[in-house]
């Protein structure tokens, strides 16, 4: 294979239960998404350079990792990934209870796909929350709070979400990816664009949310 005159060695075909080295979290998100829809109980073990093995028990909705999520390595180097059969009779992957998986999925979803749509999402879709993420347990900023509030009340596309929330489309897409990986988004290609109440469409004063955010000295929104 030649790209711009430089030889690029073809990547070896993935083997069942193992994947090539990867940087970042896209591959992890794809693997997690795939395992979560399997009918056969399956768990995951990811080896991450400098951060040790990351174990995910989907049945218990828990994970075990020596790296705290406050120090989540955005540019993690994955050195291996394997699936481990779960279900009745299988030994526990780690000593329970572990940590709530939602926190890990939140971080992986935000940091995978580099602001592009997750591979399992389709164009033309609108999204709506089925339940809020537990924000007191996930590192977040106030732009994300505003976006989540939009998604809690209307079906919106990624572009509409960005528009309502005043953020870049890529930032909105990262949130959609995360909430979708957490499986707390409903998707529809048929939902119409949300209607905005006429009296609010012309409002010019900054929102109470914005004023309170400033008053509380929160610069993260």
């Amino acid at each position, binding site marked *: 294979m030649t790209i711009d005159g430089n030889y690029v060695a073809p990547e070896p075909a993935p083997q069942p239960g193992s994947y090539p080295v990867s940087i970042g979290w896209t591959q992890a998100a794809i693997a997690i998404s795939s395992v979560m829809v399997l009918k056969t109980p399956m768990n995951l073990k990811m080896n991450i350079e400098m951060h040790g093995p990351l174990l995910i028990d989907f049945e218990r909705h828990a994970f075990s990792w020596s790296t705290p999520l406050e120090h989540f390595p955005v540019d993690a180097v994955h050195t291996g990934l394997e699936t481990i059969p779960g279900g009745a009779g299988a030994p526990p992957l780690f000593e329970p209870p572990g940590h709530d998986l939602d926190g890990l999925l939140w971080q992986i979803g935000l940091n995978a796909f580099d602001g592009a749509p997750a591979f399992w999402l389709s164009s033309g879709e609108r999204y709506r929350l089925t*339940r809020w993420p537990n924000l*007191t*347990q996930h590192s977040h900023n106030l732009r994300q*709070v505003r976006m989540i509030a939009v998604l809690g009340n209307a079906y919106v596309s990624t572009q509409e979400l960005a528009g309502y929330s005043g953020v870049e489309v890529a930032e909105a897409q990262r949130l959609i990816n995360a909430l979708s990986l957490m499986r707390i988004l409903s998707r529809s290609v048929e939902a119409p664009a949300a209607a*905005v109440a006429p009296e609010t469409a012309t409002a010019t004063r900054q929102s*109470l949310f914005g004023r309170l955010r400033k008053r509380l000295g929160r610069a993260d929104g």
Partner: protein
Amino acid sequence: MAEHVILFTGPMGAGKTTAISNLSEIEVVRTEANNSERHIVDKETTTVALDYGEILIDGDEKVRLYGIPGQQRFSFMWSILKKRARGMILLVNSDAPDPIAEMTFFLDEFRELYDRGGVVIGITRSDVIAGPTLAQFSEALERTNPGLVIPVFTVDPRNRDQMENVLLALIANIEMREIFGMLTATESA
């Protein structure tokens, strides 16, 4: 002066007074009396009328924080306090005998605050006892109030940062509900 009234509701011992104390910029007005129901919640005093705190946004706008008494025998205060409220933070302690029933009860009792503003549910003391999971609280909400997507968070009322996040999530949600025309009721007469 523009004012926004936020009500803190929930059973006795859920952490309402602590939450308001943590958020308020003024010394909280409390109406505490000796707790005669220590067999239910083991604390010395409990709110009998209301707690009051506030956050001044600027010279002519403030957020008023009212806490209700958690015991049903003081429910006459509930009717008084909910009249002016724009939103509600419902705190439920995970170590209550039946926290899901408590959540459902208070949500029903103050349902009009959801209809005309918004509600956030905070599950407290979840670090003390392994009560129902958030998913179980959400499932119960879906069963009893189908279609309502109410934020449910675990929260420590002593943690100011967490309480600010809960309050901001409530305000953001109320404003989005307003923008999308979801508010269906007006202030009680």
